[in-house]
């Protein structure tokens, strides 16, 4: 997929600093402050998680933090709503399988 660089109403895409994120072990770039889901759509990622029983793929559905279809494991914490969680430098994002696994000691 792609970023919308030029827009007839909104004008050119404003320049913002880029941050590095790690998606399933691979380093990628994201625009500072953008939502994880937006960054992943821009990289062309097709699905964000797979369901626990039938392993079906899931992606964004509502895009505003209500439906929880887009959840992923972020910095070791499962079930993070990626459509309303902004990226941060060095963030580790993983495709979630089922309910996910807690990896962070709190």
């Amino acid at each position: 997929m792609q970023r919308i660089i030029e827009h007839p109403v909104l004008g050119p895409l404003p320049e913002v600093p880029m941050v590095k994120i790690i998606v399933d072990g691979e380093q990628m770039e994201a625009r500072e402050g953008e939502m994880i889901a937006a960054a992943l759509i821009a990289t062309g990622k097709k699905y964000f998680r797979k369901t626990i029983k039938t392993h079906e793929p899931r992606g964004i559905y509502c895009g505003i933090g209500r439906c929880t279809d887009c959840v992923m494991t972020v910095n070791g914490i499962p079930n993070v709503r990626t459509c309303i969680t902004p990226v941060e430098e060095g963030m580790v994002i993983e495709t979630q399988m089922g309910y996910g696994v807690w990896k962070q000691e709190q």
Partner: protein
Amino acid sequence: MEEREVVVIGAGPAGLSAALEAARSGAHVLLVDENSKPGGQLFKQIHKFFGSRDHRAGVRGIDIGTQLLEEADALRIEVWLDAEVCGIFNQRDVWIVRNKEKSVNVRAQRIIIATGAVENSVNFPGWSLPGVMGAGAAQTMINLHRVLPGYKVLMVGSGNVGVIVSYQLLQAGADVKAIVEAAPRLGGYGVHTAKVRRAGVPFHTSHTVLEARGTDHVESATIVQIDDKWQPIPGTEKVLDVDTICIAAGLTPLVELAFAAGCEPLYSPLLGGMVPWHDASMCTSIPSIYIAGDISGVEEASTAMEEGRMAGLSAAHSLGYVAEHDYEVGFKAAEQRMLALRSGLFGQKRRDAKAAIMAQTRG
């Protein structure tokens, strides 16, 4: 426990307008929103609004949002972002989790709930595949986040959301392959529908989506003609080469918080389903709790702002901030503006549905 005179829940068009009106009247207002930015869904509305000049017609939603935030700044309204409201107790106490780490209780003399609405889904084989999404979700991606969720789109539903988002998808560089509408007639305002039609997007009335196919993401959609009993007509299936299916099938009010607080429910199919009962001042069956915007019945951002103003003014008045005469004048003016918005072919039905809610007495 912290105390505030008025706590407004939700910083979209309704909540912002309510907070502004209550603060202008002199009340101490706290505005809370679970998102990291205020504005609700206003900032993805890049089209010009309808109505008269009083309703900021001709102004894009995104610019109205900026204007409301500037006014809130000027009035020094206290705003808590990343603040999730988990419940309302004793008709007064608002339980808020701030920044996902701190639990706070705020005792409010008046609460205005402006939680908005959520998009409906349509179920068909393949509907859970990535690439099937709410039309509003696609709108958020393109206008707010500036990413295209797909290149080739099927839009399901020809109401205002369906045609406006279709046009905005075209503006963003996507190809809208078709718009299907289950009803025999198109549902959106003529001006938006005409723009999409002029751009060459085919409309299919009496059609629905039968199936989405794909391995990890949508790769095609099958549409079908339906008869007057809404049943698929065999042999009329068409397979469309799309990677995205947008569902514009209406919205449902986000009423959980109000109902859990004890506000009396009422069923209004035209306004999106279950809504809290409310009177013309936007007060619910609980005298300390007001509502405004889509939670009180799904309409438009312009009506949401008017309802917000009404709720904010009425809440402040009930606290003794507005002189009786000023309240009467303000109330009547707000009512007139709402009547103007609820006129015409589409508005009249909403006006009747609202009147039916208010005709029921409570308390």
